[in-house]
């Protein structure tokens, strides 16, 4: 008996250790980037264009580019994704078709981002002739985040109790009126969580934009949707692997990594807060 207890204490201790180690890794990555980059961060770094062969100056065009990509792919994916989520939870019957759609959504979520990049290149850039452009990039990224938007929308709609629907129907509301006036407002915080998470994904996505939109160096603002843009993650990749003098560009890279990480962190943390608030109101 004592032996069993001792084994258990030992094993549980070991398990705790492994779990703590895993979380320490994430803390280490975040802190490393924070500490190295914080000294570089300045108003000028955020608002200036890259200078001296991307070893000095700022990252303003990359920030603008990332914001444009977020906005554009949101425009593509949010309406379609939310409607598809509504379809999955409110309209689709539990049948083979729904199972198939779910399987396809899961499969799309599992497609590696480089494959999205190639698809975007073959379809949007070359096939439809959009060229390497904001349009191609946003369409590619929009499809990439579609599964996230659909799943979180569906999950949050599932949370809404059947009594909401019945009460609305009892008042004579139609199905769409019920969804629009009752279900969606109630599920909104959950849906927003999904949207914010997907924005975080876009902000950090590199492989999918390599061949669809990302510009190596383009220190001006885009004038149309057919322009290329710089983007933070691709910029970070470029300056750490293929610059003229990689060692000299290190501080500049540290700053870029920090800005990118901060954007992603802020998005993820606010998604978490939304989620918490949502689960509280649902109880």
């Amino acid at each position, binding site marked *: 008996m004592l032996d069993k207890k001792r084994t*258990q204490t030992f094993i549980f201790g070991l398990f705790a250790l492994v779990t703590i180690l895993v979380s320490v890794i994430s803390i280490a990555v975040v802190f490393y980037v924070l500490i190295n980059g914080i000294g570089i961060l300045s108003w000028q770094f955020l608002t200036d264009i890259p200078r001296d062969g991307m070893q000095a100056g700022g990252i303003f065009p990359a920030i603008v580019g990332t914001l444009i990509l977020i906005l554009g792919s949101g425009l593509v994916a949010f309406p379609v994704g939310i409607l598809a989520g509504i379809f999955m939870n409110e309209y689709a019957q539990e049948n083979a078709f729904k199972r198939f*759609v779910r*399987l396809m959504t899961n499969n799309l979520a*599992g497609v590696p981002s480089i*494959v999205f990049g*190639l698809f975007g290149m*073959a379809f949007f850039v070359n096939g439809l002739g959009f060229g390497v452009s904001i349009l191609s990039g946003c369409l590619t990224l929009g499809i990439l985040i579609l599964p996230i938007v659909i799943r979180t929308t569906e999950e949050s709609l599932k949370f809404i109790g059947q009594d909401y629907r019945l009460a609305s129907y009892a008042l004579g509301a139609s199905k769409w009126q019920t969804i629009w006036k009752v279900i969606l407002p109630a599920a909104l915080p959950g849906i927003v969580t999904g949207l914010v998470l997907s924005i975080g994904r876009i902000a950090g996505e590199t492989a999918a934009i390599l061949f669809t939109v990302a510009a190596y160096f383009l220190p001006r603002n885009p004038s149309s949707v057919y322009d290329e843009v710089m983007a933070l993650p691709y910029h970070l990749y470029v300056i*750490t692997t293929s610059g003229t003098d990689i060692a000299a560009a290190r501080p500049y890279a540290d700053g870029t990594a920090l800005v990118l990480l901060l954007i992603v962190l802020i998005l993820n943390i606010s998604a978490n807060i939304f989620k918490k608030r949502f689960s509280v109101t649902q109880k």
Partner: protein
Amino acid sequence: MAKKIRIKERIIEGLIYISGTSTTIAVLLIVFFIFKEGSGLFFMPPLEEGYVIAIHPQNPVKELSEKEIKSIFNKDIVNWKDLNGKPEKILTFVPDDIELVFKPEDLGTDFVLLKDKMETYALSNPNIILAMPERYVGNALKRIPIDKIGLGSFLFDKDWFPTSIPLHSFGIWAIILGTLWVCVGALLFAIPAGIIAAIYMAEIANPRFRNIISPFIELLAGIPSVIYGFFGLVVIVPMIQRTFQLPAGETALAGSILLGIIALPTIITIAEDAIRATPRELKEASFALGATHWQTIYKVVVPYSISGIVSACILGVGRTVGETMAVLMVTGNAAQIPNSFLSSVRTITATVAAELGEAPQGGIHYKALFMLASILFIITFLLNLVADRIASRSARK
């Protein structure tokens, strides 16, 4: 009025149904475009576009294998008698030789006279073999047919020299092995650590501890892979270089460590959900029989949730196979068959990401990279299907 509303609702519901099929359409489009571009590879000979291989018409040699042609132009085979021909030294001729043999002023503007001069020159050298653009090769010369690329040689040949001239080598075996090494190395620690952390979080940890830890694991999932790549490049790579006294720290090991970290949150969150779904009654029955908590975990909880745990691991595998930026940045990308974790390797994803930018659109190299992406797609698609099957089996139970 009521009718107007009905029409509006019909339209909206139509949009909802269309949106419902969006992911299916997306998957089909991806399959179509990736495979369409990729399959073109198997309809082309592995020859520089527009080139032909030709020999003297009196040369008794009728056909040459791909390997023989490569050996000839690499000067590994130097005599025709090794190829069942006359015992004569082989004279190779490629575009670089034009200036050595002919004077520029003899060729006219834009090489208009080159074709005729070439023909005369080739006919006076019975031991010649040329690899030249088709338009400069006269009809009197005997062309050597080149086989199209086969699936077998694409998958199992060791050499990946997509731009070598005149014949390209598109063998992805070294790349497949590189991918395998990096992923196996990653999963070797990510799967045990991920399962242990999932069990700990779902079963053992007290709620307060869990509330502190779980945001960090979610954070781990949210960090972009290019940041991991950056971290790997500036921290892990130099560390490996110093520890093992290597000339360069960009190794399979660095890739494995990063991929393991990247796969961890996928494995943990999905496995944790599966473990948490174990019915309370089962656990309490086990406790009632006098089992300790640990005995209950490995005799009841883990067996009950094993399919969820397995499917979490499979999705973790998919995550590592498909990860691009992090491995591209830290594995060194040498297309060679790896012999240890300290050698530089190149994965499927890294090859595509690194080379597509330089491959001319629609060319054979471009198609080979799309074929690589198709293989990647098939692998991850199958992994997802299997994970889905296993997970839904547990749901039915």
